[in-house]
């Protein structure tokens, strides 16, 4: 696996160098891409590593976004603290969500996650004093600090902040999936009943992974609010839950890096196609079907598979030298 590593590092180098070569509008797109990539990667912990399919991952994104937006508007806490607090808050609430959702398995689990997201959607509409109702929260500032640090208030500074969050989360997730905890998650993915009979209390592991995935999804949302300057109910709408699931699958589930590529693919395609046709979602749908049918291992799976085949060609029978 040396190739993927080199590829990954080259990728990171490009992302770090990007502000020096790209025009402002492209940087805006790239920042959104980094945030969305983090959001998709967080879902991969559940979908790819534990086979816990969620139809309600927007709950994490919206919670993080509203929490960070509210704190930036109503307190004087500096941006990094707000983002950390919003992440923790989402994770703590997710323990409750995970506790309830893991009472069920399979499709019922997915439906319960959807129900929670819809519940938050309704709350965001009704609890006007905190969420701003249908208007949402607007004019969310990127506040300076701590200690008068103004770096993060600039577009480039904020981009680096988001990128650091993505890379940090990626390294954290990689440690997690390679740990004993991660081995148990894979056991749950392949045969949960057997994992229980081996003596693992799988429900606790599932609640834990839901909490971690939601916390990181919350981190993505907490970055989105000050990036866009607003948080509204669209960030809790079920459509986004479906889209992020598609990003994970198209990018390659169970790989962490794949979903980030999936998010990039989705965003760029949306950007390009939406300027050509109104029905861009139709084309994306067709591409999604194509991936599910012909390349279920996703973009990253295709890429690494191709590299591996080139490194190690299959042995053939040779009849004449």
């Amino acid at each position, binding site marked *: 696996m040396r190739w993927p590593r080199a590829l990954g590092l080259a990728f990171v180098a490009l992302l770090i160098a990007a502000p020096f070569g790209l025009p402002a509008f492209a940087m805006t797109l790239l920042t959104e891409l980094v945030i969305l990539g983090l959001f998709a990667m967080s879902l991969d912990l559940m979908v790819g590593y534990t086979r816990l399919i969620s139809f309600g991952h927007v709950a994490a994104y919206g919670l993080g976004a509203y929490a960070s937006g509210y704190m930036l508007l109503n307190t004087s806490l500096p941006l990094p603290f707000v983002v950390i607090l919003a992440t923790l808050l989402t994770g703590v609430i997710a323990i409750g969500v995970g506790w309830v959702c893991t009472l069920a398995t399979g499709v019922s689990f997915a439906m319960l996650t959807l129900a929670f997201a819809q519940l938050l959607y309704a709350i965001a509409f009704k609890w006007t004093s905190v969420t701003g109702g249908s208007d949402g929260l607007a004019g969310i500032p990127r506040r300076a600090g701590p200690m008068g640090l103004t770096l993060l208030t600039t577009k480039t500074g904020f981009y680096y902040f988001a990128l650091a969050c993505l890379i940090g989360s990626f390294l954290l997730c990689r440690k997690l999936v390679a740990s*004993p905890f991660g081995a148990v998650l894979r056991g749950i993915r392949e045969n949960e009943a*057997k994992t229980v*009979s081996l003596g*693992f*209390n799988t429900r606790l592991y599932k609640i834990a992974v839901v909490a971690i995935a939601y916390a990181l999804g919350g981190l993505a949302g907490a970055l989105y609010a000050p990036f866009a300057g607003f948080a509204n109910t669209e960030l809790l709408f079920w459509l986004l839950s479906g889209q992020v699931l598609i990003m994970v699958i198209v990018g390659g589930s169970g790989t962490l890096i794949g979903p980030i590529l999936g998010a990039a693919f989705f965003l760029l395609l949306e950007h390009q196609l939406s300027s050509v046709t109104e029905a861009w979602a139709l084309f994306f749908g067709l591409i999604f079907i194509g991936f599910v049918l012909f390349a279920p291992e996703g973009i990253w799976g295709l890429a690494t598979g191709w590299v591996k085949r080139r490194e190690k060609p299959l042995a053939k029978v040779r009849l004449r030298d």
Partner: protein
Amino acid sequence: MTDAGAALIGIAGLTRRYGALVAVDNVSMDVGAGEIRAVIGPNGAGKTTLFHLITGVVKPTAGHVRFAGEDITGLPAHAICQRGLSRTFQLTALFPQMSARENATLAAQARNPRRWLPFGGGNVFTQARRAGGAALELLGLAGVADRPAGLLSHGDQRLLEVAMAVAQEPTVLLLDEPTQGLSVEETAQVVETLSRFLEQSHVTALLVEHDMEVVFRLAHKITVLHRGAVIADGTPEAVKADARVQEAYLGGIE
């Protein structure tokens, strides 16, 4: 009935009803330490349900299971396993995409108090790999250790399940029809390996089995179930000679 204090596993009045059906009907039996006990009976006699009741997969309607003097009735399956009762399933249950070694390693990891560590875990893995590797060796699977479990021969899959239970260094090994679905040759091979292992390890084992030859080859004592209830209990010779057993079960064969 033997003295309950001396038994490692004491089952008393264990009953499981599904509506009008009584799958397990007031079963009582004691298994001593080091004993290899087979539970036999015709199809639908309640053997597997009895296993599910002991291991916590199914909750009993009535009755008790004691293990090493402690009441374990109704505990969740993972908690019962943690006390030292490791089982296999009638229908092979493995992690098909992981290698045989990874299967055994994960099984052994379950016994480590730090099995949940969310980072690092080098020591956890090293210990688990050692125990898993030793278990594979004991059951003659060292040669196929790095193959995906789903691609092993059926006989090796059954042995891998036993190896996973063994990797947990259990006090009691519960084997649910270890030769289920195997050809005659494979059965002979699996029984050979199992009997060698059981003789060497002196572990207490509870065995559900259909194949009478396998039972008489492996078990010290036999409990016969018929329609959920115990109809005989004793040494293989005594059970073979029992008139009621012959009528209910062996009649057609012997």
